[in-house]
């Protein structure tokens, strides 16, 4: 079964989604609009089509797709993007045959889906990212040239030559720092205005002071100027900032790719019986919709016609499907399993079940908003400290020598040399390296703060359905039936697509084809005729009972041959791959695990027992899950929540840090800090280990920075810091912390290092 996700409702989530991932992107217009030379869409005007094809994974795929598509007469140009696994096509005519293109792609082994207009926003350019790159390029240019001039001066250029070089440096440095350094200056200004302190305040102060002092020195033809320090600082810090930004965008892009596969439309039944497609966002209350089997409810609905089975695992966490008949109300997000139904829309998308989750999510988020990143926490102490230090240096020198200019020079050189270049690089570089490692292990991380929070956890709570478990199976040992009966059961089960039936069929040997006239009644079950003319039924107990000679209580779907006693086929959920190992690893690391499930007592306790007797809470609604997490937080715990369902979404946001599998709902993935793409639950301990290693490296980096300051500050206060000393000291400390962070790459080698790993393929299929 393909990965199933809510196909709608995400529009309502869009606003807070953007808040969670603050990776601002300039929305780019739809491709046909981007083609600015097209005033109106006549059939002759070309059309731009963007497709997502997850199976692209190397240059030969690229070459094959481009070659094959280019040969189609309707296609003018085609370009495959290997990084994003996307195909962009320009056709010769507007009314091109999209289905034809898709089928050609499927034939050559690269099934693709259209990226719809809403998702096109993600393909727009990363405006901030490219602004930063531009700033880096300009700062790099300036830094190199000023370094050249500075090296000349340090090498002994003096007199008029030195004056000339200083003036040249000033002419390069001032505009470039203003342009490239604006990211720090603006951020520092905003922080100061609201009375906060962040890492950018000491940076901005050092930049401005360095420039001011150097300009002054240049004008009075002094010996030492710090233009090169100002520019190299800007350059290095911007690189750190850009890496951080890139990391978040990459994760966001990768996650956007996961939801690309759903098309957000539904079918409206008009009076007269014609069916028209309608966008989920345009569904109005009282509209009649047709939901085919395999689709999800776009909004909250009431069944009008037909009966079926519903999978509410993602909505409520129930592991077994329930049946629905006319009159039943269904929440948005539940999946229609067996038969097509006509439903009446009850609410607008924004008022549906999804929207309730949204509201709860927003409240739950507030708690987390209070988390302060480690770099900012450090800067809260660090920045005032160095400012006081600089001020007292100034005072001390004035009192001692009475020379204002020299005192100011030395005080400012203290500010420059203590500028937290290493600090500002220490965290992002470590996080970027860690994010790269996680990605290779199939774990996407949203931002660095998630990694910091993950390192702190002391408890894990798991959702059950879809997180600890994946699907169902029939325990082999429980069958006490005759061979013929088993064959009939297997054949009935094999003829249905209902998940329970499939689980049964998969656990039984393939049957001989004995039954005749097999029919499926949506919402009830499957029926067939035995060779002796008796009926056999598998399905809902009340329906099967009709032909049974004897009733039977229990759990699971019912089965019976006509005029024979009814039986129940007990099903149990299958654990997600490596669930036992992962939980054991966590317990071993001293981290208690707990199950928070919306499912009933029985299934939850069974899973808890199988995983080694975990503490478990069952029949929790979304608010209950959040309540439990808040209680834990109040007790001083920092909890990692792992979940996938729509009902887990508020809990994911409420926990200290959260993870969800790639198969989770869009909302769940958006709320989670980490998304793991591989089926194995080992992702949880792997991410935890890496987070803790990263935290250690970050602490070491801070240690190095402190050490550096212990050496540099006395020198600066004593007035021994020349621009040359500053340049060497600052760049060597930066290189040191970067090198230390790169160690994360080598120490955290995972077991699986295959290069050709493909994330999209690992969504459970």
């Amino acid at each position, binding site marked *: 079964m393909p990965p199933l996700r809510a196909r709608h409702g995400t529009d309502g989530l869009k606003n807070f989604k953007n808040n969670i991932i603050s990776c601002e992107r300039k929305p780019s217009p739809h491709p046909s609009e981007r083609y600015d030379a097209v005033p109106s869409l006549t059939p002759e005007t070309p059309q731009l089509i963007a497709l997502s094809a997850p199976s692209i994974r190397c240059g030969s795929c690229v070459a094959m797709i481009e070659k094959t598509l280019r040969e189609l007469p309707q296609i003018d140009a085609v370009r495959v993007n290997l990084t994003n696994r996307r195909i962009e096509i320009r056709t010769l005519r507007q009314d091109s045959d999209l289905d034809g293109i898709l089928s050609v792609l499927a034939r050559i082994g690269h099934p693709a889906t259209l990226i719809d207009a809403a998702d096109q926003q993600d393909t727009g350019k990363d405006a901030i990212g490219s602004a930063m790159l531009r700033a880096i390029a300009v700062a790099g240019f300036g830094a190199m040239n000023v370094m*050249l001039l500075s090296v000349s001066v340090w090498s002994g250029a003096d007199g008029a030559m030195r004056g000339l070089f200083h003036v040249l440096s000033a002419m390069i440095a001032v505009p470039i720092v203003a342009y490239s350094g604006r990211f720090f200056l603006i951020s520092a200004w905003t922080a100061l205005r609201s009375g906060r302190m962040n890492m950018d305040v000491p940076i901005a102060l050092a930049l401005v002071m360095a420039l001011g002092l150097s300009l002054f020195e240049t004008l009075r033809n002094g010996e030492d100027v710090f233009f090169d320090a100002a520019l190299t600082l800007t350059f290095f810090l911007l690189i750190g900032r850009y890496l951080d930004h890139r990391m978040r965008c990459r994760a966001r892009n990768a996650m956007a790719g996961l939801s690309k596969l759903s098309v957000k439309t539904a079918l409206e039944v008009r009076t007269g019986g014609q069916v028209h497609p309608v966008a989920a966002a345009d569904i109005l209350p009282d509209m009649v919709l047709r939901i085919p089997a395999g689709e999800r409810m776009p909004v909250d609905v009431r069944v009008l016609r037909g009966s079926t089975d519903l999978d509410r695992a993602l909505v409520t966490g129930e592991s077994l499907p329930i049946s629905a008949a006319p009159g039943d109300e269904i929440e948005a997000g539940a999946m229609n399993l067996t038969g097509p139904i006509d439903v009446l829309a009850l609410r607008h998308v924004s008022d549906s079940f999804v929207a309730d989750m949204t509201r709860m999510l927003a409240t739950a988020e507030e708690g987390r908003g209070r988390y302060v990143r480690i770099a900012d926490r450090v800067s809260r102490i660090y920045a005032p400290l160095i400012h006081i230090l600089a001020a007292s240096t100034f005072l001390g020198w004035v009192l001692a020598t009475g020379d204002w200019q020299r005192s100011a020079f030395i005080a400012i050189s203290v500010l420059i040399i203590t500028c937290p270049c290493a600090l500002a690089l220490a965290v992002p570089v470590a996080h970027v390296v860690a994010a790269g490692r996680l990605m290779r292990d199939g774990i996407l991380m949203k931002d660095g703060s998630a990694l910091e929070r993950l390192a702190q956890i002391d408890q894990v709570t798991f959702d059950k359905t879809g997180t600890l478990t994946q699907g169902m199976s029939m325990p082999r040992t429980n069958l006490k039936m005759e061979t013929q009966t088993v064959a009939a059961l297997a054949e009935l089960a094999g003829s249905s697509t209902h998940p329970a039936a499939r689980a049964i069929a998969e656990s039984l040997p393939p049957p001989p084809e004995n039954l005749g006239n097999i029919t499926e009644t949506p919402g009830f079950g499957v029926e067939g005729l035995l060779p002796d003319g008796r009926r056999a039924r598998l399905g809902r107990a009340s329906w099967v009972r009709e032909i049974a000679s004897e009733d039977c209580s229990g759990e699971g779907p019912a089965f019976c041959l006509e005029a024979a006693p009814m039986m129940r086929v007990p099903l149990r959920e299958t654990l997600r791959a490596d669930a036992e190992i992962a939980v054991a690893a966590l317990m071993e690391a001293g981290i208690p695990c707990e199950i928070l499930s919306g499912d009933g007592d029985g299934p939850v306790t069974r899973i808890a027992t199988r995983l080694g007797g975990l503490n478990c809470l069952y029949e929790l609604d979304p608010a209950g899950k959040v309540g439990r997490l808040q209680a834990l937080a109040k007790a001083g715990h920092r909890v990692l929540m792992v979940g996938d369902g729509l009902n887990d979404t508020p809990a994911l946001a409420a926990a200290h840090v959260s993870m969800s599998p790639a198969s989770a709902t869009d909302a769940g993935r958006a709320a989670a800090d980490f998304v793991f793409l591989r089926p194995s639950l080992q992702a949880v301990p792997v991410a935890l280990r890496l987070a803790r290693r990263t935290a250690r490296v970050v602490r070491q980096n801070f240690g190095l920075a402190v050490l550096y300051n212990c050496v540099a500050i006395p020198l600066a206060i004593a007035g021994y810091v020349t621009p040359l000393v500053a340049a060497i000291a600052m760049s060597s400390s930066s290189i040191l912390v970067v090198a230390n962070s790169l160690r994360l790459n080598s120490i955290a080698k995972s077991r699986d290092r295959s290069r050709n790993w493909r994330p999209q393929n690992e969504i459970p299929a």
Partner: protein
Amino acid sequence: MTQLKIAERQIAMILSGLIVLVGLVMAAAGHGDPMGAHGWIVMLFAGVVFCIVMNVLEDPEPSEDRRTSYYDDPTKVGIVIALFWAVVGMGMGVWVASQLAWPDLRFDAAWSSFGRIRPVHTSGVIFGFGGNALIATSFHVMQRTSRARLAGQVSPWFVLLGFNLFCIVAASGYLMGVTQSKEYAEPEWYADIWLVIVWIVYFVLYIRTLARRNEPHIYVANWYYLAFILVMAILHIVNNLAIPASLTGAKSYSAFSGVQDAMIQWWYGHNAVAFFLTAGFLGMLYYFLPKRAERPIYSYRLSILSFWGIVFFYIWVGSHHLHYTALPQWVQTLGMTFSVMLLIPSWASAGNALMTLNGAWHKVRDDATLRFMMVAAVFYGLSTFEGSFMAVRAVNSLSHYTDWTVGHVHSGAMGWVAMITFGSIYALVPVLWRKKTMYSWKLVEWHFWLALSGTVIYVFAMWNSGITQGLMWRTYTESGTLAYSFTDTLVAMHPYYIARAFGGALFLAGAVLAAFNVIMTIRKVPDQASQRDYPTNSEAAEPAVPAGE
């Protein structure tokens, strides 16, 4: 010629006719001066071109749509010319080296004196061999990576033949004693002006081809080639700013004087090393190495980063050629500092090339062509390290003016430049001529070992010679006088000079094999219409060495 339309052939005729006229004017005006002789050479060269074009003027025009194929004829001619210059230039080198070991080899003629044939060797290998190889491969790479045909049909010929005219004028001038006395910029003013014209056409052709590319991305090799063309143009123009003594003679005076001139010259000289001998050939490396190894470059991002690093750091290192001169101390220190920092992007490039081969070592073992490229990358790393080291003033005080410098240059020129060029030629020839394989893989193998042993012998001889020389020069007796006379050092160096001539001869022998192998490939190997640029694994019959050999 068959690919030119009649109108284009007419343009070619007019152009060559005009150049004949220029030659005539030069011959008339410079009568009695070497410039007059150059006039005759120009006339002869352009006249031959004129006749060739006239001969085929009325041949049928190309019938097919020319946009559907690449224009490979200039590349083919360029490769053959490059090999011709390789043999000539390296032959001259062996002769010059032998003259140092056995001075009688001068044969007592003026034109064959060391000072005249040494620039024939240097210009022959750098501009004749290297330049033609760069032009030819750049035509190939720019078309392949742009997925578009060259933007002009006549201009590639103008660039290629015009450049060779420059080379011929330069080389013949040296033999007549015409020189500006600027290393690697010896040709006189009229040759310099001609090169500027050719170079501008080359640059415009490159940009126009890129502008009509059908592949949106510009492959990194193009950036290296473009930097080579653009920066060489600027360097050439600035360094050759000179006032001709008269418009009728081959003599000019530099616009700069004294140490200013020296600074400009070495700003040019070392940037020529950077942008001609490094950037251009890195362009070659970044295209042909991945192609041959059938693996993408290890880190494409790093290749772009090191491009900008190299471009920036090289600009100011030239002054390390002028340690302990009248140049201000700080300019020397500046050159030294940046020379040392240059090591970072240089090693990034070399490492990137070698890491690309990581995982394809079996191919390197079996395929001499790929081995050429690998050894080139190794020598690139070694000689850039050596260069940074020698730029340090203290080291330079020992190495400068000694044979160590010569050894360093040759480890770069033979080990890096020539190796990558030969590797690229062996990779390119079967593709260009649509041949199944090279004529003989055994000859490639022989060439590889000859070239490698020749380089190693040469470089080691020069290291020993240079350090011996440097130490002898700076040895004082207790009374403070020099311990050795200059003749003493010459006697000490004699065996190394013989070794050098031998190493050079081995390298030359390899180049002759290459030329023979390429000619035989063109003439003897059956054609093969290949769909792809390069033979795939299954088809690559050429490199596989049979087991047990």
